[in-house]
């Protein structure tokens, strides 16, 4: 079995995987980072979004071996110690979740949207979010949360 090495949330890891192991399986089953969720088998739902070298990817569509030497950020690595990242705080304060299952993916997608559109508005968030399902909220508070989070990041200097 091949061994892959990568950085996950700032820590070096080396894991033995099968060729067909998906990144999401490596994260959830081997590293026990279960904050990255699996909602589908067809790369539609976005519950599994993580960042790979700063780019959001659906970790259910990436083989673990493809992530070799990459810098992977999951929801568990977003907060700064015990201080929530402004995007996480925005979801919490704007009630951007009901069941919370989509939330990890939404926060990861939101971070990327904020990075690309610092002054983001509702319409842009809706357009950019079309790879993430939420079945609970009707998206209303999620859109509000991402806009608020992006603006807070902007104020905090990116």
């Amino acid at each position, binding site marked *: 079995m091949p061994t892959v090495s990568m950085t996950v949330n700032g820590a070096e890891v080396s894991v033995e995987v*099968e060729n067909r192991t998906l990144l999401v399986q490596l994260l*959830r089953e081997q590293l*026990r*980072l*279960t*904050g*990255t*969720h*699996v*909602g*589908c*088998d*067809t790369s*539609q*739902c976005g*519950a599994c979004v993580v960042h790979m070298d700063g780019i959001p990817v659906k970790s259910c569509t990436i083989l673990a071996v493809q992530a070799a030497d990459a810098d992977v950020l*999951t*929801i*568990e690595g*977003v*907060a700064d110690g015990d201080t*929530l990242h402004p995007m*996480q*705080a925005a*979801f*919490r*304060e704007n*009630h951007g*979740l*009901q*069941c*919370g*299952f*989509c*939330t*990890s993916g939404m*926060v990861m997608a939101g971070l990327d949207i904020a990075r690309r559109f610092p002054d983001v508005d*509702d319409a842009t*968030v*809706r*357009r950019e*979010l*079309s*790879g*993430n*399902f*939420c*079945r*609970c*909220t*009707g*998206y*209303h*508070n*999620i*859109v509000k949360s991402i806009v608020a989070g992006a603006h807070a990041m902007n104020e905090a200097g990116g």
Partner: protein
Amino acid sequence: MGVDGNYKWVGKRTVRPDGTDKVTGRALFSADSSMPGMLIGKILRSPHAHAKIKSIDTSKAEKLAGVKSVVIGKDFPNLPNKTISIGILAANFSEMSDKLMARKKVLYDGHPVAAVAATTSAIADKALSLIKVEYQVLPHVIDVDEAMKPKAPLLHKKMITVGVDPAPTKASNVASRCEFGFGDLEAGFAAADVIIERTFKTKPAHQGYLEPHGAVVSVAEDGQVTIWCSSQGQFMVRSYCARLMQIDEAQIRVIPAEIGGGFGGKTVIYLEPVAMALSGRAGKPVKMTMTREEVMRATGPTSGTSIDVKLGATKDGKLTAGEAELRYQAGCYPGSPVGPGAMTAFAPYNLENVKTVGFDVVVNRPQAAAYRAPGAPMSEFAVESVIDEMAQKLGMDPIALRELNAAKEGTTAPYGPKFGPIGNEQCLEAAKNHPHYSAPLGPNQGRGVASGFWFNVGGESVASVNINTDGTAVVLSGNPDIGGSRASMAAMAAEVLGIDYDKVRPIVADTSSIGYNDLTGGSRTTFASGMAVCNAATDAVDQMRTRAAKVWDISPDAVEWSEGHARPAGPNAGDFEPMSLADIARTSAKMGGPITGRAAINAQGAAPGFGTHIVDVEVDPETGHVTVLRYTAVQDVGRAIHPSYVEGQIQGGVAQGVGWALNEEYVYGDDGCLQNTGFLDYRMPVASDLPMIDTVIIEVPNEAHPFGVRGVGEVPIIPPLGAVANAVSNAIGVRMTDLPLSPPKILAAIKNGS
């Protein structure tokens, strides 16, 4: 306290207690637990819609290295064929067991036929491929109207329709007939100047919860069972597993994981008993999680339906009679929500002559499971469409027609009783006065309005409130937090105790840590569990008042509780320094021990909810594509304990209803197998399909609840179907009666003009 009070925490937009866990990925959902030595369980499913199982050979799978157990239908107990009620659910365990694991026949594509547990997922997959099942394929039937035809393939050879007099002598797929109503239909229609008759169809829709079903089950050597799973009720899982596997409830402990959405779809179980059987045989814990494909093929969507409506009115808009026949797909065994469909169809209206007849029809599909306001969205869609058409025919404003005929306090509901205080008229009025309703429309745009009604339910609930010596409190309740209920429980407890919201920690307890609770469903949690929490907090307050009275040596009746303090009242007012909750808690050891408030109730007095929605759409005449431009939802919730989560429930219900109206449907091949088994072609709305959803909360308090709660979650999925269909119909000038309103259907309607 009291339903009209000014509150410190109730009605405030507090941050939810589990918010941090959920934005950091720390919250544990069903697939997130593991145990040492855990095996992976998988299910082999029928590739046929309807077939006899001639033989199953599992010998090769059993011999595969790494396979620890294999089960098939005969490994599960056979149970009496009888429907019984469990809390707010009804179940026939013989049928339920057969749905879990097929015995003689498979009844739908995806029906489980065998299951394996192995050391790895890959070995489990390999083992499934080694199981040989010999089928004799039978003719199948999917559509409800087809299934009712005399020559239709029969799912159950002995099924005689219940509820028909005299009982039919021939078996059919019609499981039962129900009927509601009163008055004289003939006279009612004779008095009408305008009569409209139409037939409507809706397609089955899936609840679409984002978290697939999952469970980890451990059966120990002494037979004790521990289950970690996500469901809408840990006690439901326990009762069902105990009965299905024939063991004592006390032997089973169900620990609720966080639940990633349910919407009714997690009021049933699919995996837990199978995992119990596998774990028991293997002597190891077993984890099972479904793929999305399994969720789509084999878990309960709601019924597809076919509905006839006839409505009569005088030329000045008085409705004179309403009649409907409803035909609902039940899935492979009886149990569609046609009953509530028939009860709710005309509920927003004051009708003297009304009759609804419902048929529960089995078809080769997975068993229908509850989906928000089970049965109501379809029947109310049909009626709301006819109401809209009636307004057009009469040249009346559609809200004015509804107001003229609105059910109000004292109106006899079509399902029997008279309504108490309800907010139907208030919702209509708020909708009429909302700026949305008078905003101008552009070309190819249309506006639709629809009302919705749901009963809401109560049920059995237990709560305890433990007062800690540092002046904080822990609130235990027994309902999974599916959409922010921890926040509501904490707010209500904080309000009654008079301490700060963040001094209250709400916990969802497992089945061995708290008394029985009915499940989260029917919009009962904030009402019924909320009532239990209020009562438990009041019990704790009473104990603290008694202790203060002892310290002061006065009668407990002379001690009042306000703002978290015991205060001498009446003749003793001002005689002693008030004692805070923390003061009393600190001395609890000296004063008789810990303070724990308890309540165990069967919450009665659930009060109905009404809503009125307005939607604007634009139809692209070239493509038939519908864009939802603006949406406003008005709803009477009794009391919004946490307005943000009330709004969230409404917005989420609207999104699901819009999906049902426009996109979502099951597509079957000629072989009766489901073709759209994933999110790719089962199209749920994404953010770009929806506008912001404006909500207006009406509060007509329910006197039976300490804070006036009615319930929120069911009503908002009802009006969108009718509202969207009415808006599209108005935009293109053709009445649309067949959901979902997919572009090809709309193009055809524009082309044919009918």
